[in-house]
Structures are given as structure tokens and as C-alpha cells.
């Protein structure tokens, strides 16, 4: 039921190349620097949304911990940016709280490569340990969502409590340069935007290959009937842990791209609303379609930004009503609804539908 648009591959590839061309060469010329920066941020959100779609849309596990993985990635890279900005001195906030020496765990973050690797590996490790324990105990459905949400809240509290080590509620804010280039320069902003587009493209292609592979179909099988997967000789714990780790890694990677574009990372990014917003992007776009995740993230955030500037007092009411409307009227999301529409117009060539029963009569006289 939920699968990729089964258009011919050629059309799909053409669409992909056209979008890439538009994002890479047309929009940077047409849009203002401010708008490009905004779009760049939305595209990092799209990367996170793809990760959530893998585990929610395809595997059927609603994770409310994606904001945690996203923020862990952002914190890792934010620490590097903070150190680079501080140069040979300590980060500014440490001086304010009387820290005289750089804490040991900050040391390796002088290396951008280490920071990027940690931004991906750390969320994966957290997801791996948490996922393995949850899935092994056969905890499913809403309980999985609650546990991931709780972990996010716990980490947020932990970060808020560590005022001296990572600047508590304020978060890490002192970031002015990246690889020696000033973050405020329009050139740097364009470069970050281009990097985001490329990473998004690669993540999209990678995930598309994954869900079209046998492993991807197994994810759908887990969503349909996990118990049957187990009695088919697979260990669902392994499958679910792997895909959960993958989605966490993708979120972490998105965090790396986000933090230089917004110049701040604080525990605010880990609040309950943040995780739920990611769910909304995917729901609006259409879960179980990778394209839907991207479209949802960009659409919802564009809407949020436009409405909040024009109607600062009531924008949350308007957004909320829109979400409720979409979920009630188009439960399959934008992409899912469009696909249904296309299927009504033209019968999908890859799917045959059964004629009604070929049996002579459904109710046969049983000779007992």
C-alpha cells in the first residue's frame, strides 16, 4: 500500500536531476541570502525527516527521540565551531563560570573530522543501546514513543544542569568561523547551503536504494506483522535496531549541517515540541514516501516562517488548524494523496488487480 511512487525509473531520475539543478543553480541566484539561509535550514530538517520516515513510515515505529539525535549531532559540531572561534583561549562562557582548563571531553573537538564523526556515531550508539534494550524486551507501539520521548527530556535536563561544562540553558552560541571562513559571509552561507543540498541528495538516494532492497521490504514486513517476521527466521530485534541506528545517524549528520547555519545550539532544541514537529513534517508530506518527508519538512517550515512573520500573534493557531485539517482531510499526506489521485486517473501498470472470485459460486454446498 505504502511504497515508492512506482513511476518508470527514467521519469524518477529526470525529476531528481531537475530538482537538483533547481536547488543548486537556480534558487541561489533567484533567492536572497536570507531566503537561501532559511531554505538551507529547512533542507537539514528534510534530512532528519527522511530518517524518521525510515523508522516510522516504513518500519512502523514512531520515534519521538529524533530531536535528541539531531541535537547531539548539532552539539558535537557546535563544540568544534566554538573552539575554533575561541582559538587558543577558552570558550567565553567557561571563563564566566570560572572554568580555568578545557574539560577533557572538549579536547578532541578541536578536530573538525573528529567532531563530524562523533556527530554521527554518538547518536547511533545511543540509538543502538536504547533500541536493542527496547526491542529485545518486545516493547512496541506507543511505549516505544514514550521511552524515546522520555530519553530526550532526560538529556535536555542533563544539558541544562551542566552550566559549567556546556553552558546549560544558554547552549553553545559563540560560533563565528568555520574552517577559517566567517559564518556571516554570504559566500560561506551559500557554501553551507550547497553542502546541505548535496548531503540531502546523497541521503535521499541512499535511503531510496535501501528501501528498494530486500532489507527495505523486510522493514515493511516488520511493520505489517513483526511476529510473522520472527517466525520466518529473522530476528526483528536486529532489523529494528539497525534501522533505528541508521535514522539516528542521519539525524546527527543533519545536526552538523544545521548548527553553522543557525549559529546556536541549546537544550531548547530538545524540547517535546521539537520532536513532535519532526513527526508533523513527515505526516504532512506523507509517511512511507521519502519524497513526502522532504516536501513535508520544507512545506511546513516555509508555512511556519511565512505565517509567523505575517501574523505574529496568532500564527500558532493558524498552523495548528492547518495540521489538524491536513491530518483529517489527507491522512496519507501530500504525496500519498497525490499518488492516489494519479492512480485513479491511470491504473498503475506495475500492479494487477484481481478480478472477483473465479470460483463458480462462493457458497458451495458442503457435503459433510
Amino acid at each position: 500500500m505504502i511504497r515508492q511512487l512506482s513511476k518508470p525509473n527514467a521519469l524518477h531520475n529526470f525529476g531528481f536531476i531537475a530538482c537538483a539543478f533547481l536547488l543548486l543553480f537556480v534558487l541561489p541566484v533567484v533567492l536572497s541570502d536570507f531566503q537561501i539561509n532559511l531554505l538551507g535550514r529547512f533542507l537539514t530538517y528534510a534530512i532528519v525527516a527522511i530518517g524518521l520516515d525510515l523508522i516510522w513510515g516504513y518500519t512502523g515505529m514512531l520515534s519521538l527521540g529524533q530531536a535528541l539525535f539531531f541535537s547531539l549531532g548539532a552539539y558535537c559540531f557546535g563544540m568544534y565551531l566554538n573552539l575554533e572561534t575561541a582559538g587558543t583561549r577558552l570558550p567565553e562562557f567557561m571563563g564566566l563560570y570560572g572554568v580555568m582548563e578545557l574539560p577533557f571531553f572538549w579536547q578532541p573537538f578541536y578536530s573538525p573530522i573528529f567532531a563530524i564523526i562523533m556527530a554521527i556515531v554518538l547518536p547511533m550508539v545511543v540509538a543502538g543501546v536504547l533500541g536493542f534494550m527496547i526491542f529485545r524486551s518486545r516493547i512496541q507501539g506507543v511505549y516505544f514513543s514514550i521511552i524515546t520521548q522520555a530519553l530526550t527530556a532526560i538529556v535536555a535536563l542533563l544539558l541544562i544542569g551542566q552550566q559549567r561544562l556546556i553552558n546549560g540553558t544558554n547552549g553553545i552560541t559563540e560560533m563565528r568561523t568555520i574552517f577559517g571562513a566567517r559564518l556571516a559571509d554570504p559566500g560561506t552561507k551559500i557554501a553551507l547551503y550547497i553542502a546541505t543540498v548535496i548531503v540531502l541528495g546523497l541521503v535521499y538516494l541512499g535511503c531510496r536504494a535501501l528501501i528498494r532492497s530486500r532489507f527495505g521490504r523486510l522493514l515493511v514486513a516488520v511493520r505489517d506483522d513483526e511476529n510473522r517476521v520472527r517466525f520466518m527466521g529473522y530476528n526483528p530485534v536486529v532489523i529494528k535496531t539497525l534501522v533505528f541506528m541508521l535514522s539516528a545517524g542521519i539525524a546527527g549528520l543533519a545536526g552538523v549541517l544545521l548548527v553553522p547555519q543557525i549559529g546556536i545550539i541549546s537544550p531548547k532544541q530538545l524540547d517535546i515540541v521539537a520532536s513532535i514537529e519532526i513527526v508533523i513534517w513527515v505526516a504532512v508530506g506523507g509517511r512511507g514516501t521519502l519524497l513526502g518527508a522532504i516536501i513535508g519538512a520544507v512545506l511546513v517550515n516555509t508555512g511556519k516562517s511565512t505565517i509567523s512573520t505575517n501574523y505574529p500573534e496568532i500564527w500558532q493557531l493558524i498552523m495548528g488548524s492547518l495540521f489538524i485539517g491536513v491530518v483529517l482531510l489527507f491522512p496519507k499526506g501530500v504525496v500519498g494523496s497525490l499518488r492516489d489521485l494519479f492512480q485513479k486517473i491511470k491504473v498503475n501498470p506495475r500492479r494487477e488487480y484481481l478480478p472477483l472470485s473465479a470460483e463458480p459460486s462462493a457458497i458451495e454446498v458442503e457435503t459433510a
Partner: protein
Amino acid sequence: MTKKIVEVKGVTVSFDGFKVLDDLDFSINYGELRFLIGPNGAGKSTLLDIMTSKTRPDKGKVIFDGHINVTRAAEHRLVRHGVGRKFQTPSIFSSLTVYENLEAAIGFKTRPYKLGKGLSGEQKDKIEETLEITNLKEHRHTSAGILSHGQKQWLEIGMLLVQEPKLVLLDEPVAGMTRRERDHTGELLHKIAQNRSILVVEHDMVFVRQFASTVTVLHMGKLLCEGPVEQVQSDPQVIEVYLGRGHKAA
């Protein structure tokens, strides 16, 4: 004495103090097609649960293939050792096509990170062969969710077949089928029984009479009788259990 593919020894299972299986001994030989019947609540499904390690017994043990301790094995590992099970309700993956269902089943020994690759030629042949004998050839690209009830059951049997299990456990494979579908299922059973052991739990006595050779009757968690179908049918105890007291004419 013939060798046994599975041996249930002194197994007791109780739920809330009620003994579902009571010190039960039961076994199936290599290559045997066995039918298991019994009134509701006799413990038939629980026996299957015990043999697939879905339920752990309070007492007793189950040995598969001479050396595997079923009660200690994880469910999915047991499947890899060669125990296939079909559940009572058709459980197939409705979002996947018929072909994809079989494809998922055949990869059950593949390591997850190797699932990115396609199937081997041998595996493809096996799937084609299974599509043929389950009559699903022209429905290969149909979503499994829109198959008819009978076709779903055949697909599930097909998913067992591609895994080439040593022992197949089928829980009411013909429930809700038309006569024609039932006949086809019976033929399918004989076809696949040629080189493996099969245990069929069934309520439908017409079906049992038609296709069974050896029948085991379970009642109140104990073996009531076991033997050729004619003998079991004329057993006074079985008649009483099935038809109640005072109903001697079958």
C-alpha cells in the same frame, strides 16, 4: 524404531492453574504426515506453541532433530534449524506483493547487511517453482493483501516451502475454504510432504478423512488416541469426546 524429528517429553503447561497440556508425550517421525485433532481447548495450538518455543513449558522438554533443545532456543533460530509454522489466521505481509513475500521468506538465513543484494539464480528458481505449485503464478505482482482467503493461505504455505523446513506445522490450513480450495490444499500437502515431516492441526473432519493417514487425538491436554484414521474414527472414546454421551452411531 523409526527416528523422530520432534519429541515432546512429559510437557506440562498451565495458564492460571489450568493445565492446558498435562504431562504430554508426543512425537512425529521423519517424513511423516500427521494430523492432530481434538475438541476446542484440547491444547492443540498450545502444543504448536511449545514446539516453536513461543511458549515455554512449566515441565518437560522438546527435542527437535535429535539434538536441538527447543525450549531453550530463540524462535527465529528454531526456524533456521528447520521448523516452519503456519498460523491459524493467514499471516502474510499485505503491503508486499506475492513475489516479495516469498522473497522475504527465502532470505531468512541471509545476514541483514547482505540483504542489499539480489537473490541468487537458485533462489529465483525456487520461488518460481513455489509460485507454480501454489497456483499463484499469475498473481506474482499482486499485493498480498487483496488475495482471496484461500490464496493467502497458499501463499503462506509457499513462504514455508521456500525455506525448505524439515518440519512443517500447519494450524487449520483449510479453515474458511471452499471445497475446491480445500481439495487443492490437500493435494498441496501431499506434494510437499514427500521429503519432510508435517503436522496439521485440523477441525474439518471431511478434510481429515480425505487426506490423513495417521491421526492423533488430543483431549484435555492429554493424548486420547493415535492411529490410522479409520481406527481413530471408530474409537468409542473419540466418538464420546466429539459427539457427547449417548451418541454411539457415527
